[in-house]
Structures are given as C-alpha cells and as structure tokens.
C-alpha cells in the first residue's frame, strides 16, 4: 500500500530524514518509535503533504501512485489520514459541518453522490459511540474549547467517519490519561481491517499495549535503524534508546 524508498527530507536547509525506507501492506499495523528529534513527526507531515518540508530525494508511492505528486487534499481523498499531534481549532465551524464537507468532498472525488443528512447523522451517531465522544461535541466548533483528551478522541472520531486506507497516528497518546488512551486505542482497533493499514508514531511503548503492532521500527537520526516485532517495543521500553545509538 505504502512504499517509501530512500527518502531524504530537509526543512530550511537542515536534513531531517536521511534515507528512510519503509513498506506497509494492507492489513498491517506498523509502529515507529524513536527519541526526540529523530524525524518521526517530519515523516507524518511529509506523508500528509505539508508544504514546509522539502523532499530532496527518494520516492513515496501510495497504492501504486506517486504520493509526492499529489496535493494535500488529493492524498486525503485517496485515503491518507493524519491524526494530528496538535489538532487545530476552527472557531465557529461545527464538527458536524466540517466532517460533512470533508466526507462529501471525498465522495465527490470518488464519483459518489453526497451523503443525505439522515445517513450522515446515522453515521455520526455510530462512529462517535466508537470513541465515546459526547454527542454535544459533534455539534460544537471543531476542537474549540476541547480538552486534550477530547481533541485526540475527536481525531479518531474523524478517522472513523472518513474511513481512510492509511491512518497515520502522530503521537496520539501524548497528553492522554490511561482511560482516554484505552478509548482511543479501542477506536483504532475497531477500525482495523484487511483493507487498511495503520502507522502509529509514538515515543512510548504504552500505546502499543493497546494497539498491537505487527512491526516496530526504530527511527534514529533520520533513518530506520532497527525493525522487529512487538517485542522490540518492550525492549526499548526497558533499555531506552541508547543501546541502539551505540549499536549503530
């Protein structure tokens, strides 16, 4: 589904990713771990198409298409979803209105008719239950005045509504207490299928107790330096990142 080959990315002339290679197939859950400044969030931003980043070399294909040639919204419509580390507030725009616009833009892209108000509301009801999101949050302005936990749950709610092929969770666990973490992880797990894939970016092993990865990659200094199964995460938790740094 996603194939990243020898990716080099700079921001303001400083190279952050220095030859990253990664392949994710449908049905898989991958986790990327690594110390601060390793380039984890940069990877998430580049996948989503954020403009501040310059891809100096390497390729990314998504479902056989050149992802780097696609605009931000095209990527989203093709099924790339980014759960933001810091979800953005949009005052005065209700969550419902925001999502309805998004869903219908995606449907239009796929040549489908717009969703009727009734079907849409049914969907909202069903999906908001998935992350135990209070119905009142759905009608409030996007992320405005939401608590940290509510914002993260709202990201997963949006993900559930948009049904992406590839979901990238950027530090979704940061700032969550254990209950919220469980709810968020439960939502992600419920959405898992053979057709879609998840890329979990995280600092801590904690989240991976709930979202069980098929592969764990360690990102260090712009490259993936180690890949393993879920037990690698536990090893990292125990030993920290230093042994990987020195092993290199």
């Amino acid at each position: 589904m996603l194939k990243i080959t020898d990716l080099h990315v700079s921001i303001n002339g400083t190279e952050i990713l220095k030859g990253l290679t990664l392949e994710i197939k449908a049905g898989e859950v991958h986790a990327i771990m690594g110390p601060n400044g390793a380039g984890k969030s940069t990877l998430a931003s580049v996948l989503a198409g954020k403009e501040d980043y310059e891809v100096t070399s390497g390729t990314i294909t998504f479902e056989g298409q050149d992802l780097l040639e696609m605009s931000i919204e095209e990527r989203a419509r093709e099924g790339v979803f980014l759960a933001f580390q810091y979800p953005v507030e949009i005052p005065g725009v209700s969550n419902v209105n925001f999502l309805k616009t998004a869903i219908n833009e995606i449907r239009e892209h796929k040549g489908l008719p717009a969703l009727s108000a009734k079907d849409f509301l049914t969907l909202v009801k069903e999906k908001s239950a998935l992350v135990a999101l209070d119905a009142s949050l759905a009608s409030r302005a996007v992320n405005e005045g939401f608590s940290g936990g509510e914002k993260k749950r709202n990201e997963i709610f949006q993900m559930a509504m948009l049904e992406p092929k590839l979901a990238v969770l950027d530090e979704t666990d940061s700032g969550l207490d254990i209950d919220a973490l469980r709810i968020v992880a439960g939502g992600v797990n419920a959405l898992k299928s053979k057709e879609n894939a998840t890329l979990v970016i995280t600092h801590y092993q904690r989240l991976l107790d709930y979202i069980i990865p098929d592969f764990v990659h360690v990102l260090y200094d712009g490259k993936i330096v180690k890949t393993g199964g879920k037990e690698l995460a536990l090893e990292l938790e125990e030993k920290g990142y230093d042994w990987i740094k020195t092993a290199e």
Partner: protein
Amino acid sequence: MAGYTENELAKDLADKEYQYGFISDIDSDVVPAGLTEQIIHLISSKKNEPSWMLDYRLKAFEVWKTMKEPDWAHVNYKKPDFQAISYYAAPKQTKKYESWDDVDPEMKETMSKLGISLEEQQRLTGVAVDFVMDSVSVGTSFKAKLAELGIIFCSFSEAVQEHPDLVKQYLGTVVPITDNFYAALNSAVFSDGSFCYIPKGVRCPMELSTYFRINAGGTGQFERTLVIADESSYVSYLEGCTAPQRDENQLHAAVVELIALNNAEIKYSTVQNWYPGDKEGKGGVFNFVTKRGLCEAHAKISWTQVETGSAVTWKYPSCILKGDYSVGEFFSVAVTNNYQQADTGTKMIHLGKHTKSTIISKGISAGHSQNSYRGLVQIHKQADHARNFSQCDSLLMGSVSGAHTFPYIECKNASAQIEHEATTSKIGEDQLFYCQQRGISEEKAISLIVNGYCKEVLNQLPMEFAVEAQKLLSISLEGSVG
C-alpha cells in the same frame, strides 16, 4: 478565480452606452449636471411635491453649501465633482438585455452559486422576458395583506403624497439635514426610497425583504428610507440584495432613519454588494451612507450588515438610545478584497437609563484592501446603569491587506459598564492544512473558516438571506489566498 467583479461587471461598466442610462420618464427631461437651487425646484416639481417638501430640500441645500466633504475616515479616493453629477435621475434605467442568452455566463454562474431562482436572475439582470413574471401581482397581494394590518409600505415619493403627516412628523428627526455633508446632500436631492409604518401593537408578519426584492427595480443614487415602528410593534426589514448590483452611479449617498417608539422593535438587515471596482482598483461605487435609529423607552433596534461591495464604504449605522431600557445592537461583517476600502462601524449613544448596546464587528481584509472599524460608545451623564459590550475582530488574508480599529469611548456616568474586546488574526496555515488533510479543497476551506468566523453575525440574518450571504462571502474572497 475571477468572480463577477473582475470580468463581466468591468465589461458592463466600460460599456459607454451604459453611462447614458439616465433617461427620465418624460422624453425630453434631461436635467443639466450640477446642483443649484433651480435644479432642486425642478426635482421637487417633477415629483409634484408639496411645498413643505421643497422647503426641506432647499434648506438642506443651503446647509450643504456651507459644508465640506469629511476627510477623517481612513479611506483614500478622488473626491467626486459634485457639480458634474446630474441630480435628476428618474426611475433608474438599467440596461436591458435582448435575451437571456446575451447575459454574461459568469454573471449567471455567480447568481446560480448564490442560489437565486432563474426567474429572479432574469429580473435582476433586466432581461426583457417573454413569459409573465408575476412580481406585480405578488407585490399586490403582499400589499393587500399588509394593508389589512394597517401597515404602510411604499415608495418614499408615494408616502410624501399619500401620508404627508407621517413623513412631515418624522423626516429628519433622526438624521437632521445638518448632520453631515452627505446627509445634507441627500436631503436636498434624494430621488426616492422606501417608507414603512407599522401601527401600534402590530407585528409585521413577513420579512419586508421579500416584497422589497420583488420591487427593487431602481432605488436610485440618493436613496431615502424612513421606517417608523409605532408603540409595541415589530418589523424586520431587509435592504439590498446579494445578487451582484450593477450600477452606473459612482456616488451613492443614502440616508436611512429608523424610529422605534415605546416597546417597538426594528430589525434592519443589509447586504451590500455594489460593484467594488476591478482587480487594479479602477472604478467601483463610493458608498457614503448615513443610517441611524432612535429608540424610545424599552424599544430595540438591531442593525445587521454584510458588506462585500463598493470601492469605498463609509457607513456607521447607529442607535440613539433615548428611552430608558432601550437596546441597540450592531452586527457587522465587512469584507474587502483587491483595492477596496471600508471605514465602517457604529455609534451607540446612550441617553436613557438602563440602556444597553451590543456591537459585534467582523472585518475581513484580503488583497490590497484596507478595512477599518470605527465605533463610538457614548454614555451621557443622565444614562445611569448603561451597559455596552463591543467585540471587534479582524481577519487578515495575505500579507498586503490592512485592518484597523478606531474605537472611541466617551463615558460621563460612573455607573456605566463598558466592555471592549478586539482580536486580529490571520487565516492560519495550520487551519488550512488541517482542512485540506481531511480532503477539503483550499477554496472550500477558506469559505468554511471565514463563515465560522462570521457566524455570530450571520446568525442574526433572516434564514434564507443568511444562506445567500454565506455564499456571497465565499464568492467575494475567491482566489484571495494563493
């Protein structure tokens, strides 16, 4: 993407033939340009006005001659030559298209985007349509319904003839002829406008908009509006139209007076979409309007405006809160793009005790435009326990537009409570990115964010108008973030 403003309106206005659209209803009546006492006599006699009306005009003219065009507003334009204007404009002649096919497709598209029905589109573009448009009979049936309730709603000229006592009693009581340069000019030469009277205890059952839009043929360059809500009555009045307004007059100087007697309520909503000039800032309408309302005890006046048009806007819908417990509200969205300039805001004059006012102003500046909020909150000595809340937000798009806020507060009573909040922000790159990451195009994202930003004001508009206004905002800002 170019909206109607950049292309076909420019084309329309460049059309020289169009400039000579001033034809009076009697063939030979071409009044020479310039303003003299004689011209005023002529205007008045053509309208067959009573002598008190003529006297009023002449008095205004005398005052106007002694006045100077104000230059304190934060706008920059070449002052019109007042002696080069022809002041007798018989019912305005809009350019007629031979058939619907001749109408510029972009203009049609704009109107479709606004959700205006085909019949109305044809009426607005002035197409000579073959099929019978039922506006006359619809208008008549509205009129019959209103008449049943004793509501008077007619053209100003008609009111002068049919209801002289009411006109005489109230005209100039809120905006006196001495008020300002443009108001004096309007008082001397006003062409026509609307008159509305709601009798005691009557709640006007419909938005006067519907009726107004059907009859909005030509309201002229110096429009005069007088709305009187008698004790305990209510009226919601809608002025303007979201459809692109093509106009050959460069200068518009309207006066609107509202009078809300004890316990009455007037809701006055405006959408202004005059020709704003082209992308380079050439052409466009100068909109210098004086709007003011007077509230007696327990009365309430709400001004809601969505301003997207005109090259230069100078407009301060105000409330004089004379009666105790009266309430004044001002909700405004002013959008400027390209080289448009707007200096707009309100004045809340608190005279009565326990008077309350609310000001919510949302400015949006894009392109090279300049957008200013100018407001005055004045609490007089006797106005015990007066309260005001003001919120002035500015949204900037791009890096060369300007937003300015000039709030004035004068308080002479220690029991007053005045709050003022102001914010200035830019449409965040991060907000756009967030929307786009969810599959929403940039244009749609801007429209979503802007409408969210203006929500408090748009919510004040009557339902069907709010929908059009939302679309209008998007169209006005098309292509403003590149």
